[in-house]
């Protein structure tokens, strides 16, 4: 990992995990994203993005599609592995070897952890991880960081509380370690069954970061700048009874925020079910729809950097 000097530094590289990016590289990408806020140049005209979604997704897939269209490029791919050769037993390695012939860059989402890393090893084209199981979701992390930086003017030293499903949420896993590297204070609030996995807690301890854990999500922590809320993900529970037990353990609404004498930033990767009340949509600190908007900007920057057309 090193310090990028120009946009060309990223050309042909993959984006698989936040662990592959240095602080300088992260800040450079956020700076480029800033340039793309109002950029209308068809920088990827004639280029093709392969959107390989082996696992369902609405936001990430459409966001990449929109980003590519805004850049003048086109998108092909699938949104459901059941309609592809994978359902006939084709290996991921073979699928990538075939698809790389049709495109200039690949986005892959897969339920198995490490699928994007393997795809990146196989492919001659740059690969972006659109989410691999409960592991990483680096473009979500970068758009979250971009949103935080825009709203707070910095990332360093902020106090961030994560609420909800910290066990299965790759969005949380991907973001939490990055924020730790930026010296943020972290509070982890979840039902005991959904606490951050031990290996990640150990990882944090090993880099000298201490996280405070709270196990009653109905009580919001007071000393924070950002509340990062997550959906309790029904589809990740091996035991549906367990899901029923924890699904409604917390809800953030106007009344819950009365404990704060200041505006607190409310973030959520979406989709939400009932963990953020609709009455918060016009709250000054609500940032979840801004995250969606920023997602397209950040993905435009990433696609352009990796294809090498900026």
């Amino acid at each position, binding site marked *: 990992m090193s310090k990028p000097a120009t946009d060309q530094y990223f050309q042909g590289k993959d984006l698989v995990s936040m662990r592959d990016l240095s602080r300088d590289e992260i800040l450079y990408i956020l700076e480029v994203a800033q340039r793309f806020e109002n950029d209308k140049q068809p920088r990827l005209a004639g280029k093709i993005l392969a959107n390989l979604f082996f696992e369902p997704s609405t936001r990430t897939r459409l966001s990449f599609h929109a980003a590519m269209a805004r850049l003048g490029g086109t998108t092909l791919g699938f949104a459901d592995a059941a309609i592809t050769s994978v359902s006939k037993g084709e290996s991921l390695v073979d699928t990538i070897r075939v698809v790389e012939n049709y495109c200039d860059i690949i986005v892959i989402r897969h339920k198995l952890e490490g699928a994007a*890393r393997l795809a990146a090893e196989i492919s001659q084209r740059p690969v972006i991880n659109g989410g691999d*199981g409960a*592991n990483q979701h680096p473009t979500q992390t970068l758009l979250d960081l971009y949103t935080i930086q825009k709203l707070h003017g910095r990332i360093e030293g902020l106090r961030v509380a994560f609420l909800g499903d910290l066990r299965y949420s790759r969005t949380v896993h991907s973001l939490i370690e990055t924020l730790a590297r930026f010296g943020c204070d972290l509070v982890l609030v979840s039902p005991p069954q959904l606490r951050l996995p031990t290996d990640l807690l150990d990882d944090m301890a090993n880099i000298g970061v201490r996280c405070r854990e709270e196990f009653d999500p109905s009580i919001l922590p007071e000393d924070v700048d950002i509340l990062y809320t997550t959906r309790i993900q029904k589809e990740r529970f091996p035991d549906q009874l367990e899901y029923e037990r924890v699904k409604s353990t917390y809800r953030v609404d106007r009344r819950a925020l009365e404990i704060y004498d200041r505006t607190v930033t409310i973030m959520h990767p979406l989709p939400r079910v009932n963990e953020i009340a609709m009455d918060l949509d016009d709250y000054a600190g609500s940032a979840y729809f801004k995250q969606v908007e920023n997602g397209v900007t950040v993905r435009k920057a990433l696609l352009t950097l990796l294809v090498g057309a900026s």
Partner: protein
Amino acid sequence: MTRELSDVEMRTIKVSALERGTVIDHLRGGTGLRVLSVLGLKEDEAIALGLNLESKKLGTKDLIKIENRELSQEEVNKIALLSPEATLSIIRDYKVIAKFQPELSEVLIGLIRCSNPSCIGNHEPIRSEFRVVHRRPLRVRCRYCERATNGERLELC
């Protein structure tokens, strides 16, 4: 210069001393058979195995002497994973020419099975790859699913 050895001396030497080969000493008690199994055997190798021997350092230890074999780095990695306290001695002409503790490589390829059932490495025909993130106590990270595992929970391929 060599001299003729009597039958009795030869039998003693087979067990207690090696003309050429490797002595793996100070294996954590109970790991000897596992180490032997992961090293595999060749037809021309004579092996002496001591189990649950008394050890001042470890309480009990296992010991393996292998004739005519010097270990590869991959084999040293395997021993380091199973018993990092072990001591390896390389013997030539009955003399110890090198003595060292097994040192793990930075990257371990094809040695460890990832314990995460959702790791792509357990679903596609690829060689496992782990990076050492901490040596003592041992902690390694899977290249694919990125999950870190502590040494005592590792499963060798």
